[in-house]
């Protein structure tokens, strides 16, 4: 049988495909473009911040570039990337299914994403947005920029996110192969499943609050504008009710990748499968109850501050359980070291440091000083870039042989990974210190004593960007020129590796019957 890549080579066959793998590839292209675009905005920010006084941009353009950076990275890259690319490609295969439960809806979610992205990018092009990705009212409702269309774009992208989530939930419930009990599902599936629940429950709240901001902006409705009797703090509650769980929408799939990578490369069972699976669900649940920690200085009541503070501590415990379990999985494993493992190693440091600084900013008194400074910027980049981006890259390498039937060059991959991780540390460590020193975020100009740390940060960002470019180049090159790969080059026990390489349209020649767990390295690959 022909592989999914070879069955129909015309552009049309790609654009109207209902094959989850092809849709995954389409998303891979789209989200990678978003990453490049968001990265360009990031570099523009870093260039402007080389000097304390305005240099290349005026204030409005500067405010636009960090807003565009945030909006593109969060809504077009971080939130969708791992579920739509690797979730789409591998979730059905990991369940032993021929496709997702609702293939047409799957294709629709891609086009809805494209539509939303187009609206968003057009509004950025014509007029731009200068409110920050948080769209805080009432600034957002009075800003002279194209806020209404941009939030509409985000709203549409949100619909795509909901559709994807829904599809995955249905798929997990109905499409599991014979013998696939819940606790035989790969941990990546658990992570995507937990993410899908958040996507379906939280995204509507974001969508509606953004629509209200748009309506305030376009028609002066005044829901969040105190001059018209509205309440600006209400917007913050609604926004963070989505956007804190969104942090987990971004990080949970990455954690799923970690679990797969660490088990495969240590050829070992996870130290506790249940701990990892259940903590995913725990994170998804408690994550809904911590949003107030973004508002410690906005004038919340003492009770709220206390409650949101302690709940935020609990959610950190679940992440700690995972970290601990991953480390223990290495213990007495049979570890092979490839690029995904290097990313895993980077992840462990960045994620733990980023996560612990999260506990630090959830400590209410300390947050008074750190809130809205570069410390917070550095903290969430450690989590999001250090967590999600490194694991996106790890996934690109780990599953590359299965997706394209070819190998990537290991030497270049290690160079790329080192550049990404080191560049990243150099970019954001100075930002922690800037935050300590008191530099507020979203500052176009700043007092001169902050300059040299900013220069260091820009230098780090350059290394990071180079690392990403190198990675992009050799990966694209190997799609066409790489060495041919076998069916299971890493000697994994994941079910997706049982499929031919690259997989045919319906994944498996004969329906799978699952008789062993996905990490049973003591069993032969095929029973």
């Amino acid at each position, binding site marked *: 049988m022909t592989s999914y890549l070879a069955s129909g080579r015309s552009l049309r066959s790609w654009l109207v495909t209902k094959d989850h793998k092809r849709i995954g590839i389409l998303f891979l292209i789209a989200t990678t473009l978003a990453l490049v675009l968001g990265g360009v905005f990031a570099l523009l920010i870093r260039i402007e911040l080389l000097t304390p006084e305005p240099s290349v941009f*005026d*204030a409005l353009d500067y*405010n636009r570039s960090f807003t565009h950076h945030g909006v593109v990275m969060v809504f077009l890259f971080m939130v969708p990337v791992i579920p739509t690319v690797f979730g789409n490609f591998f979730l059905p295969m990991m369940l032993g299914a021929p496709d997702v439960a609702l293939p047409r809806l799957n294709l629709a979610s891609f086009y809805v994403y494209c539509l939303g992205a187009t609206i968003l990018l057009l509004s950025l092009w014509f007029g731009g947005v*200068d409110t*920050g990705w948080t769209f*805080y009212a*009432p*600034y957002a409702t009075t800003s002279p920029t194209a806020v209404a269309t941009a939030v509409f774009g985000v709203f549409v992208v949100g619909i795509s996110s909901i559709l994807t989530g829904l599809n995955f939930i249905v798929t997990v419930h109905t499409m599991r192969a014979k013998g696939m009990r819940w606790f035989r599902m790969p941990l990546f599936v658990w992570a995507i499943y937990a993410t899908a629940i958040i996507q379906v429950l939280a995204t509507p709240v974001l969508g509606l609050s953004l629509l209200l901001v748009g309506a305030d902006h376009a028609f002066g409705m005044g829901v969040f504008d*105190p*001059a018209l*009797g509205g309440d*600006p*703090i209400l917007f913050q509650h609604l926004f963070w009710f989505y956007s804190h769980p969104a942090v987990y929408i971004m990080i949970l799939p990455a954690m799923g990748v970690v679990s797969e990578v660490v088990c495969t490369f240590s*050829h*070992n*069972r996870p*130290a506790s499968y249940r701990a990892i699976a259940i903590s995913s669900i725990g994170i998804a649940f408690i994550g809904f109850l911590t949003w107030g920690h973004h508002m410690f*200085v*906005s*004038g919340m009541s003492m009770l709220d*501050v*206390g409650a949101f503070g*302690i709940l935020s*501590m609990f959610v950190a*415990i679940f992440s*700690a359980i995972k970290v*601990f379990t991953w*480390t223990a999985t290495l*213990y*007495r*494993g*049979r*570890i*092979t070291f490839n690029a995904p493992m290097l990313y895993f*190693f980077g992840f*462990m*440091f960045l994620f*733990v440091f980023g996560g*612990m*600084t999260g506990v*630090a900013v*959830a*400590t*209410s*008194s*300390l947050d*008074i*000083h750190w*809130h*809205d400074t570069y410390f917070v910027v550095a903290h969430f980049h450690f989590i999001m870039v250090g967590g999600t981006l490194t694991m996106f890259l790890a996934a690109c390498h780990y599953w590359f042989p299965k997706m394209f039937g070819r190998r990537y060059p290991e030497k270049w991959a290690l160079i790329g990974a080192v550049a990404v991780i080191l560049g990243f540390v150099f970019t954001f460590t100075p930002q922690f*210190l800037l935050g*300590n*020193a*008191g530099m*507020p975020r*979203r500052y176009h100009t700043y007092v001169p004593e902050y300059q040299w*740390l900013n220069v260091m940060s820009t230098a780090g960002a350059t290394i990071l960007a180079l690392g990403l470019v190198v990675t992009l180049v050799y990966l694209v090159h190997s799609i066409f020129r790489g060495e041919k790969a076998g069916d299971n080059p890493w000697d994994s026990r994941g079910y997706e590796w049982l499929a031919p390489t690259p997989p045919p349209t319906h994944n498996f020649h004969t329906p799978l019957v699952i008789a062993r767990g996905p990490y049973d*390295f*003591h*069993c032969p690959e095929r029973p």
Partner: protein
Amino acid sequence: MNDWLRRLLFLPEQASTIARDMDSLHYFVIIVTMVGATAVAAFTLIFIVRFAAHKHREKSAAPDVRHGYTHGGIPVWLELFVFGGLLSLFILWWVIGFRQYARFVEPPPNTLQIYVTGKQWMWTFAYPNGAASNGILYVPAGRPVTLVMTSRDVIHSFFVPDFRVKRDVVPGRATTVWFEAPAAGRHHIFCTELCGVGHSTMRGEVVVLAAEEYERQLEGLERVDLGDPRASSLAAAGERVAARRGCMRCHTADGTPHIGPTFAGLYGATIPLEGGQSVIADVQYLTSSMMDPAAQLHRGFLAVMPSYQGLLSAAEVGGLVEYIRSLRDVQRAEPQSPAPQRTDVPIVTPLQPEERR
């Protein structure tokens, strides 16, 4: 040690009475964070090296049963130790942090009140004696100061890194921040909430002066421009504002209710609200009542008061509040609703007697 760590972490100078306490917790939390992240990375690295596949080359031909699944679980004692330890640590931080937070946010009694307005893109300060300044805030050394802040347009946030204080400045609401600077000096003020193109230029300076110098400085400042340059105090200026802005069409100063409640004896009173709750008339309530009167309706009155959001300057708001405060001891006749009881419990802002001499 304190100074050494402070410099290592790039923290600014500790120029307020709370800064040092906050920094101590900061050191604790950050050191644990760094040690934790390094330890995890170190363990990962050690395991990767120690259990590398080539060290089992002789056995690697067939999947190794022993290494494949023996460690099925982590010993329970270790699990309990790690999570129990982490959880207690986090809860400890929460307890210390929350207690600090309460102390840092709630002003002590007898603070000096200064009224602050944020507007795109400037800070304005109005002092109780009727003086005003833009961009530069003068405060006396060694005396706690409360800032009563509101915004005329969008949300701003008042941040003085050297004092470790920050509070959002929200239109339609009054928020407060307090600090005490022990010694004379100058410190940056930053706006930390994105408020438009001038956001990063919305900076200012706190100038801390010794007490006598402070008095002299205030004498030298321009008076609040509230229509009467000779007004002897902010409260006196506020009285004129109330007249000019038409407040007295509906309110009175002599204790008799009119279309609206009387201003007499209002400050610090417990106000019964439409809907059953009650609220203490502190600075925040008074300010919100001017900005968004319908939000909390005094029981027995109609919602006829117009919103003054965006119409009053900081100094005017400050003047009105000071004026109402100066009437706190005037007797009020309260026929309709259950008579508001006087209370002396400070809730959010202190309700102590006048600081003004």
